[in-house]
């Protein structure tokens, strides 16, 4: 819980990627609430604790956040309900 509390700051989250080769731009990951766990490309959200790994280079951190953890209060506060609904109600064949 202490790590998560620290990671409330964008700068701390960004710094967590310093020693990691990540397929996604760390600034975009950090902005979307994610910090690096240090284990390969696995990231966690500081607010909802939702974890994501196996990133593809074309993926968008906010979209993945909304797709897998639509109830995250940081996501909802930053991006709004309409964004989350639009991701959640995409064609499932996406």
């Amino acid at each position, binding site marked *: 819980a202490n790590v998560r509390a620290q990671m409330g700051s964008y700068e701390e989250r960004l710094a967590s990627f310093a020693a990691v080769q990540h397929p996604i731009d760390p600034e975009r990951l950090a902005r979307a609430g994610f910090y690096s766990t240090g284990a390969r490309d696995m990231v966690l959200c500081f607010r909802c604790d939702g974890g*994501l790994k196996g990133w593809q280079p074309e993926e968008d951190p906010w979209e993945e956040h909304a797709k897998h*953890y639509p109830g995250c*209060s940081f996501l909802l506060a930053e991006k709004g309900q309409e964004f*989350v*609904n639009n991701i959640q109600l995409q064609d*499932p064949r996406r």
Partner: protein
Amino acid sequence: RPQGRTRRDSIQSYKMDASPCGHCLIINNVEFEPESELSNRKGSNIDCDKLESKFKALNFIVEVRTNLKQRQIKHELASLCKKDHSQYDCCVVIMLSHGTEVSHNRFPGAVYGVDGQHVPVQHITNYLNGQHCPSLQGKPKLFFIQACGGGERDTGFEVSPDEVEPSHGGADDQTDAIPMSSSSDSLSMSDEPDARVTLPTPSDILVSYSTFPGYVSWRDTQSGSWYVETLNGILEENAATDDLVTMLMMVNHEVSQNSAKGLYKQMPGSFNFLRKLLYFQTQA
């Protein structure tokens, strides 16, 4: 978009041709115990009747349970979970009650029993997941929830705070919220941290909320709730041609445009872990 009868043969659609299609449990909480400090939900029986006939028309075996306490809600869900669903293609749970905010990263929110004790939405969905209900594995499990996620009124963007009057919405509109008080603080962080990367993503589950947890949900005492009225109308008009997710997009649009009914706005939320398109049966 697939047209006509051929759509059900599509590899990207769930098999939905069992007859009957599956069970549909409706929990309709209207009269709350005085100790719960929750008001009676006038108009909810209208919602309940609409959805009962709608899901019967979609070839579901519909059972309605009225005024259940928390313990009884859990009991009903457990019995639904223990049923053998192997002959069926789908399962539907509808909850009409007061609700409150409970944080969870996939299925936030909670629904009240008439005793004022709540059941987190995440627990409600767990009863029917692949682990607890093997005969529903790989089959769509749908949850429709008409309840407030909390007391925050969404005024929309065009209204300035000083224009907000105590009388909101139409004269008959009530909310499914409970007032936010310090006593509800203990509710918000009460669920288990079960969303680690090591756990599988919930699959084949869709939860449609009348409103995002944290916001109120409006109910007209004469015509029922905005959400159920809209959902029922959209299903009536479009179930023969459109898939569920497309229809929920229509519901969201219509409810969020519903400013004519009052000052406050409402945006339904869909938390969708379905893997394929879902088309209801519209011809018996």
